[in-house]
């Protein structure tokens, strides 16, 4: 394994130690369990947003805890769910009486554990709502869109719901914003090299040079099929067409775009991709009002990229433009 780590089993805890040591002004751990992180100023009295999921996706999920974003996070092992207790503790620490939105990706382990956390929260009188990121169009056809998995596009929901909470919206309204954004977000990705779990040391798949995995998730899963590696422009077209179809984008529509690197793919390549996204959008008469290009949801050292599109209206755009400030993501 070409990794800079100590004992594989200590990887997650040592990473969290590093985060807490580096950003004590922005993040804190409310109890004894370092796997629960919240904003340093929690609870703020506003609606809390708790996310969570497996490790190995930085800046997802921990990186989106901050002003104008989420309020807390429950941290699992690499690609594994946090426990129900951890999800609950995060909720408890951020709740200032206005209730808590659980906002995370649609994965069995996470869903089962967050659902248990809802029961625990109820016992303590904490009101909760849940919104599930489920933006990966490759994972299920449109008819089964509620079963899709959540990938990088959840970033838009963090930004929008975070902004709604920050401006003082109530729990119902914040949850509705998250749902609305999720409903209008679609993502698809390709992989050029696998991921290696630190604890197992095994590559998640073998991919010969000159091939790519199409329709990958963010856990080193293979895609829905494999094909020859194409040019950047061909890849962009391949990723963009299903998103345009799924969101039913038509001339005159406005969108936000996220070109996300999976970990090992250089930022340069993401900009080469963005260039063609822009060209293709112009071609179909769709305006990009906001773009994010970089690493937003990774799979450790996987090479590849995903493209997410959020269909905008005035409300969504306004929320997206709101300032945000976490140790991993700043928007002014």
């Amino acid at each position: 394994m070409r990794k800079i780590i100590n004992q594989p089993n200590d990887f997650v805890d040592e990473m969290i130690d590093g985060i807490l040591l580096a950003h004590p002004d922005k993040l804190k751990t409310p109890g004894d369990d370092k796997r629960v992180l919240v904003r340093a100023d929690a609870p703020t009295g506003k609606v809390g947003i708790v996310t969570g999921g497996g490790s190995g996706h930085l800046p997802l999920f921990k990186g989106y805890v901050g002003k104008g974003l989420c309020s807390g996070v429950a941290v699992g092992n690499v690609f594994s769910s946090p426990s129900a207790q951890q999800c609950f503790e995060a909720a408890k620490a951020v709740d200032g009486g206005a209730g808590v939105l659980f906002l995370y990706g649609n994965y069995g382990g996470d869903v089962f554990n967050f659902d248990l956390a809802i029961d625990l929260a109820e016992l303590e009188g904490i009101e909760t709502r849940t919104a599930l990121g489920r933006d990966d169009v490759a994972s299920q056809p449109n008819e089964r869109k509620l079963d899709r998995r959540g990938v990088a596009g959840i970033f838009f929901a963090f930004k929008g719901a975070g902004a709604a909470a920050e401006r003082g919206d109530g729990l119902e309204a914040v949850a509705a914003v998250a749902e609305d954004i999720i409903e209008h977000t679609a993502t698809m990705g390709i992989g050029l090299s696998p991921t290696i779990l630190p604890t197992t040391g095994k590559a998640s798949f073998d991919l010969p040079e000159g091939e790519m995995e199409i329709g990958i998730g963010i856990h080193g899963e293979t895609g829905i099929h494999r094909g020859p590696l194409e040019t950047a422009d061909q890849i962009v077209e391949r990723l963009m067409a299903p998103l345009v179809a799924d969101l039913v984008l038509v001339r005159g529509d406005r969108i936000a775009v996220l070109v996300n690197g999976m970990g090992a793919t250089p930022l340069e390549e993401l900009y080469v991709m963005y260039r063609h996204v822009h060209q293709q959008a112009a071609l179909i008469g769709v305006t990009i009002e906001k773009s994010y290009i970089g690493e937003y949801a990774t799979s450790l050292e996987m090479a590849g990229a995903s493209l997410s599109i959020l269909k905008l209206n005035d409300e969504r755009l306004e929320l997206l433009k709101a300032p945000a400030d976490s140790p991993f993501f700043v928007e002014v």
Partner: protein
Amino acid sequence: MDATGLSRAIRNTMVEIKQYADELRDLDTALGDGDLGITVSLGADAIVEALDAAGDDVPPEETIRTCAKAFANANPSTMAALVAGALLSGSRLWATSRNLTTVDASAFAKAAGDSISKRGKSVVGDKTILDALVPAGEALGTSSSASEALDRAITAAKRAIAETTSMQSRRGRASWLQERSIGLQDPGATAFLRFLESWKAANVAD
């Protein structure tokens, strides 16, 4: 089997099952995210530790609850959550039992399967652990000899895995592979088979 025997048998089985961690990792790598080997080996360690701490002669219901909690938290994941829920459901049936028969085991498996089905919104045929658990649980009740019942359960689980491998996964991470899941063996169902086999290997004298 009495209460102390149950706790011992589980611990023996947990030691045994860890040898399959790499196999489960590899199956879950192909069809999921590769963490099932970790879930099983960390979970097995956690159960052994928890039961060691609990001591002997604990009522079966409590033993199972201890297992559920240990397994749920060792490496939280789909399997951890489903199995923990299933164990809790099954344990209720044993609230008054001190001496367990194959009929008790079969009833436990039925309750466990119902729990997984409910929580996972899944049914037999979705190509999950249920496909092995349900027929194996039924087979358990077809003989009053513990070892014969176990053999029948193992046979049933094996057959189910062989049959479902050619099917498309309909639940969990594997379902996202869609057609590509066809031909790949379900890791969760395999984990359950390995559990039965480990029980047999570890508790041969029973």
